[in-house]
């Protein structure tokens, strides 16, 4: 929070949000933190904005007047692999957040978050830390448990997660801090964010052919 001025100089953020007051609120918080913020109210505007140059960070709402934020995330991920993407969500509900994660988003930002929290979250994201909430972690670890019936909600491939990653997710879901998780699991505290980043990457389904591969791996498709 103290050094945000130095790092935010060159950081561009594309904020896609159709509700004007919410958009202003987030924009204010980010601009105050020193970021270069462009806004878009629709999917089309967002695409146009990305034609000029790739933003460093994309913050997008999912329900947009002319389409779904998921499409934007997928496109951006494909065109600009270095762009950090985060979903703006009113409730942080797993349904929308998880589907965004599978196309390349990293976590979510609550629309009513306090301005300082908004700035901190984006700063951490740019610094390479992938934030993960307890409820998202909970959703993922519940999916790793074997159930007879396919669970409701978006499809999520947890097959590639290692036992250690699952343990970390359990810790986050139960409200433990990174330090506590690290000490419980005998890790160094610094390695936990890296694990979380890996988790996000593994949950991402990059291409159609990879999706097929995943399905075969999980035994969903028999060749």
């Amino acid at each position, binding site marked *: 929070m103290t050094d945000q001025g130095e790092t935010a100089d060159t950081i561009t953020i594309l904020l896609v949000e159709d509700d004007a007051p919410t958009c202003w609120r987030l924009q204010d918080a980010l601009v105050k933190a020193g970021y270069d913020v462009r806004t878009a109210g629709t999917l089309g505007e967002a695409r146009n904005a990305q034609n000029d140059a790739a933003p460093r960070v994309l913050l997008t709402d999912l329900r947009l007047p002319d389409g779904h934020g998921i499409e934007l995330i997928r496109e951006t991920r494909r065109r600009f692999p270095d762009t950090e993407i985060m979903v703006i969500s009113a*409730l942080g509900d797993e349904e929308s957040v998880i589907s965004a994660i599978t196309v390349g988003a990293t976590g979510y930002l609550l629309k009513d978050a*306090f301005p300082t929290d908004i700035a901190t979250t984006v700063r951490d994201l740019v610094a390479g830390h992938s934030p993960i909430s*307890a*409820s998202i972690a*909970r959703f993922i670890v519940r999916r790793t448990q074997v159930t007879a019936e396919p669970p409701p909600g978006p499809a999520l491939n947890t097959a590639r997660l290692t036992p250690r990653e699952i343990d970390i997710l359990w810790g986050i*879901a139960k409200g433990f801090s990174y330090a*506590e998780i690290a000490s*419980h699991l005998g890790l160094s505290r610094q390695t936990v964010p890296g694990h979380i980043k890996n988790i996000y990457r593994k949950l991402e389904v990059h291409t159609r052919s990879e999706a097929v591969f995943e399905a075969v791996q999980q035994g969903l498709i028999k060749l």
Partner: protein
Amino acid sequence: MSEIAAKPAVSAWTRRRLRLSRLVPYVLLQVLIVIACILVLRLVPPDDPDDYAVSEFSLHEDGATRSVTLPHFTASRYSLADPPLYTGAFTWRTSDARTAWSVYLPRFSNAVEVAVNGVVVLDSRRDDVANRPDRNTPQIAVIPSSLLRDGANQITVRLFVWGPLKGFLDTVYVGPDDSLRSAFETRALLFVTVPVVLSAWQSLLAVILAIMWLMRRREPVYGVLALGMLVGAVQAFVPPPVPPAPYPRLAAILLASAPIESALVVVFAVLFFGWRWPRFGLLIFAPGLTILLVGLFASQPLPRIVFLFLGVPTVGVCLMLLAIIVTRAVIKRQDAASFVFGCAVTIVLTCWFHDMLSVFDIIQNDRTFVTRLSYSAMLVAIGAGLTWRFARALNQVDSFAGQLVTRVREAEERLKASFAREEERARAAALANERTRLMRDLHDGLGGQLISIVALSERGNTGATITEAARAALKDLRLVIDSMDDIGGDLMLALGSWRERAAAQLRPHDIALDWRVTSPQGLPLHPELRPWHVIQIIRILDEAVTNAVKHASARHIKATIETLDGGPDGPYGVISIEDNGKGFALADNGEALTAGQAARGLRNMKSRAARCGAALDIGSGSTGTSVRLQLPQRFPDNDAASR
């Protein structure tokens, strides 16, 4: 049948016609069987070698002598002394000496003593089988060649008769043994060997039926028949005493065997064909028992007389009863067993009539008794009937098992359907409950907060108060949504989200949330944990944190989560929230003295804890407040306290 029963007006006539249509072919068939029997009895008698017949005899009887032609009947007599003496002659040439000569008597009753040229060559009284008047035992004896003289030879036959039957002597044959032997063998086969085989058969059946009855006591039908067969078998194998009998009592018992046996067969038929037992049904045993009693207490020949005039008719009556029973069964059941049984009864009955006519000299023949022989027909029929019944019972068991499988499957399907219905109903009920609870939860939190926002906005109140109310509403909405998630009984998963929300809530106030979990697992698992438990617990914690921030001006809040050993019922969890605020004074009864929202908040916390079966301890002093929530070892199933 059920259709006929449904129309009583038509039924009597229809049934009669139906019965007639079944009776007529059956009776016609029985008539054919009777005719066939008569033809067989008439046309197929054992063929005797007529070339060697000696028919002309002079009979010396009761002091008088007269010439007779065999076959010849003599009067019945009851004394063995001075038997009728038949004297005849045959011619033998020395040229015949190359072959042995025999004397062959195809039929006589009751016993003979044959002498050639004054030397006895044959005494049938020594042969037990020959002494049975109901068997047509032939006799043959080789005449020692030294007795034979060239030319005329004398043959004398003493005929022993024991009443009440008349004495009978069939034609006597004297000739080369090889010419007579084959005729003798044929008769011996028919009238000696076959009855023995049949009796063996009968005793086997008796054993099988007795076993059946022993294994199935509730079916006396087998027991009755086994007894009947046993009586018959004993009668056939125990040698009859020759007068003067060494055991007259035994003779009497054996005499009683035939009527008792036939009565037992009638009882068997009654039971086998499922008739109701007639009230005086046991009277059928009366003649047999009478003969038995007479035999036991009177001396011969009275028992034999009683037998002839009581026992033999009883056998006939029994046969006729059998015929009636079986005929009715054939009409009613139309099955193979009763049909075969019926034909067999007809054969036996025909033979019985034949023998009766023969005994009373109504028809002239060579007095061949065939009732005993035809009894075999009935035995075959009974054996066939029982086998058929056994096979049918097996089939019924099979089809019953098949039906059972079908029924079970049907019941299973019904059960499955009703189970699915029940499940659906339970699901609907659970959904309705959940909806009610959700409504209540939303009403408790979100609803009130939104209304307060509306009220604040209407008063033109801007700024912090509305923001606060709106944030509280959002927080509550997230809580309700979050608590709906399946956490698999692990309260820690709910607390993890709560920690994030509480930390976010505290951060603008610059209050640190110290989070301590004493064990890596956190809290014990509660499979019975339901969303509404979670909401109550989280609301208690929220209230504690809100109080610390709003009313106690705390700078530091510590949340401790620990698991304590609760003895045999398992461990229990404790969640404590402590702050370093200024606290609030409590009265002795635990109620907060501070008026207004804080007091109401405390009351709310207590009631929420009570609904979850948890114990809430609140301690407050000038250095801070501590809220200790002790979770139950088992969460209550229903929200009883709230109703």
